[in-house]
């Protein structure tokens, strides 16, 4: 992992920047001359996690490739809010085709670049969770199998947001969407269904698979940089809260993403050639309620007719993630964990 050890400052390694860090130690996002791959004036909702996640990831990819980058985009919010013809927010070479074929288009772009001998130009393909885990899944799996030289980035907002918040294969159990109403004994999305795409990607034994959230910029940037160090098919799955579809406050987008990780609901890890190589430990373990309560899509679990058994079920899923990825070191104290990544006085 290429994460740089950050020295202890007022905010340690968690904030975007620090006036006392050298330029090399700073995040891409703290650079006043960052690419801003996606420009101001886009039509994403207030507090959109996807707009933020896309800028974080692509700006980092631009730095990692020395600005030699092409992006291919599936249909979805990201495409629609950025590019209402003839205007666009993209400040990088960018192609759009269809909802379901972005990985295949990216394969073609990579092949064309190879034929032209322009192997220094790298390809990123991106889409929402619907475009990735559902309709584009066949193309993506093929891209993995062929090991095409593409980094695929999924911006997971856990639903088909662009068309009005329908359920996708990445929607969590119990969540309300336009197609999973809160009726019957199991209100909201069904337990036991859906797809865990990072693990499916790992099963393809591709060079690099990682998850990230918009709440940890340092981690996300390090993963993009790491991904770009490999050739062949790679997969990055970024959790991007959607204030509109989740019913969360616009100003809490990052906070909600942070809680997804701190509760264990969304495990953050990376894997190489099918083997997990590192995980982002939980720093302040939080019960899932704290995460769920901030989102109206889970409102039916609380309030007048609370459903503690459903909350408990979700907590079990979080616990399973914690156990599966080892998200908590039982024997280590938080201070000891911190000491391993920072400079402490003797």
């Amino acid at each position: 992992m290429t994460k740089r050890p950050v020295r202890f400052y007022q905010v340690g390694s968690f904030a975007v920047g620090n006036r006392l860090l050298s330029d090399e130690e700073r995040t891409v996002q703290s650079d006043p001359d960052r690419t801003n791959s996606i420009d101001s004036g886009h039509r994403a909702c207030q507090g959109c996690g996807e707009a933020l996640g896309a800028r974080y990831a692509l700006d980092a990819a631009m730095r990692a490739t020395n600005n030699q980058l092409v992006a291919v985009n599936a249909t979805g919010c990201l495409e629609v809010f950025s590019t209402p013809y003839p205007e666009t927010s993209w400040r990088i070479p960018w192609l759009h085709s269809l909802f379901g074929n972005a990985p295949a288009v990216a394969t073609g772009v990579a092949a064309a670049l190879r034929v032209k001998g322009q192997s220094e130009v790298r390809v990123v393909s991106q889409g929402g969770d619907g475009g990735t885990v559902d309709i584009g899944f066949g193309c993506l799996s093929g891209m993995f199998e062929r090991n095409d030289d593409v980094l695929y980035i999924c911006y997971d907002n856990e639903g088909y947001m662009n068309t009005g918040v329908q359920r996708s294969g990445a929607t969590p159990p119990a969540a309300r969407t336009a197609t999973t109403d809160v009726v019957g004994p199991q209100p909201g999305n069904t337990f036991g269904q859906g797809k865990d795409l990072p693990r499916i990607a790992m099963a393809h034994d591709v060079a690099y698979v990682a998850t990230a959230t918009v709440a940890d910029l340092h981690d996300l940037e390090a993963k993009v940089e790491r991904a770009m160090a490999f050739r062949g098919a790679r997969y990055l799955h970024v959790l991007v809260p959607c204030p509109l579809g989740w019913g969360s406050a616009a100003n809490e987008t990052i906070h909600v993403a942070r809680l997804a990780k701190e509760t264990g609901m969304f495990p953050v890890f990376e894997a190489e050639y099918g083997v997990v190589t590192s995980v982002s430990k939980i720093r302040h373990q939080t019960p899932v309620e704290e995460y769920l309560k901030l989102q109206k899509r889970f409102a039916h679990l609380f309030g007048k007719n609370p459903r503690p058994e459903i909350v408990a079920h979700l907590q079990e899923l979080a616990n399973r993630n914690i156990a599966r990825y080892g998200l908590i070191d039982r024997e280590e104290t938080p201070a000891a964990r911190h000491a391993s990544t920072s400079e402490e006085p003797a």
Partner: protein
Amino acid sequence: MNQRPFAITLDVGSSRSNHTGSWRVERPNYVNRLPPCNNACPAGENIQGWLYEAESGDYEAAWRTLVEENPFPAIMGRICFHPCESACNRVQVDEAVGINAVERFLGDYALEHGLRLPDAGPATGKRVLVVGAGPAGLSAAYHLRRQGHHVRLVDSSAQLGGMMRYGIPAYRLPRAVLDAEIQRVIDMGVEVMLNHNVDDIEIERESGRFDAIFLAVGAQLGKRVNIPAGDSARILDAVSFLHEVADENPPLLGRRVVIYGGGDTAMDAARTARRLGATEAVVVYRRNQEKMPAHVEEYEQALGEGVTMRWLSTINKVDADKIVIEKMRLNAEGFPEATGEYEELGTDAVVLALGQDTDLSLLARASDIEVNDGSVQVAENLMTNGRGIFAGGDAVPAERTATVAVGHGKKAARGIDAYVRGATPEPVAKHALAEFATLNTWYYSDAERTQRPELEKVRRQDNFEEVVLGLTERNALFEARRCMSCGNCFECDNCFGVCPDNAVLKFSDGTYEFNLDYCKGCGICAHECPCGAIEMVPERI
């Protein structure tokens, strides 16, 4: 002929033509809030400000920011009871920032590097008399000199420093440090008159043609109580006892010493007695540990040095080689009441540390000055009812600490400056408090406080060497970096990074600005600002 590529009918435009700022119902605003440490500092120091400088390793800049308000960092870093640390927001994360230790480090750094205080201001021709060369008087002299007034500083003692010299023992405040920091103020051009008793303030004013006076005479008289005592009973008061020790003329106490009282002076007297060779130093106090006014650090240091405590006890009689103690109990209101149970305690001397009074005989002719309960009454700007006469420090009703006195000196100087210029003092505007709830502490690393080393106990017993030692540069820097910069931007770039609309502009001088053409008002920047330096305000629609 069509110049466009196949199937393209319109030129590509940028989304920047779409001013999404029009969606906004709230706008972000950068603010400065008052950090709780600054708010709690009796000397009004900009603690967050100097920690910010220290964080970058620019100790001189940090020291300069500090001495804007208080010219005695090396002294304060040793004797201040640091209410800032009790108020520090970091208490709610792990432990308070070691503000006092960093202050001392900066003070020592400045002494070591010979840093000089700012120059005196251009002469105004106004003359100010400062009576009393303790922390209040010296602080006033410093600020008055910066304002350009002539200052005559008079004191009845042989040396400068007041209670910092004659009340605080050298193991807490080494004399070299005290002398050096005082000298720096005197070097700004203060006229000093020592061994000078002011008998009548009006005569003093007329003969010196002073435009204003600052009374900082302190509370130098030890309170006495009537305890039946045998002829050869040895009873001293703590103030004179400590004064004589400071003059290097310590009185003979004997082996067993009883100290009567429960404040910091009692602890100082007890610890001093141990150093002068007393094998037993017993503090007798009529209430219990919880009600004791002494600061807990002082108390714990005393215990560590072998001082013992007799709680809930009063002294009823003193004889040559023993005292009689009556046991007390606390009633429902927490007041001690007698139990009628007595006990004898062998002792060679009793030191009374029961509080201090102010000697106000110099005000005999200044009849318009109001004195209440032994304290001079003052207005908000520290002016008394007497024309051009201000008062501060232990002589006025307030908490009696050196830091409060330093704050009074500054405030009085401001009041005097306005008075001699015939202006009304401008009220100092205060920002809203940077409450813990305004912070996002996720961003601060877990970092426990660095403790200050202490002189080993065996090495304290027979000397006045300094007990609490300083931080190394490395530790001081670490400690400064634990500050969360409550309510004031410290350039962490979070707002610049987290805006989904790239509506925060970052400039090379470390400042930021909102680009309201594109800010949709989502408020993520305010939520993710670690130190609470952004507020959201409703947009007028």
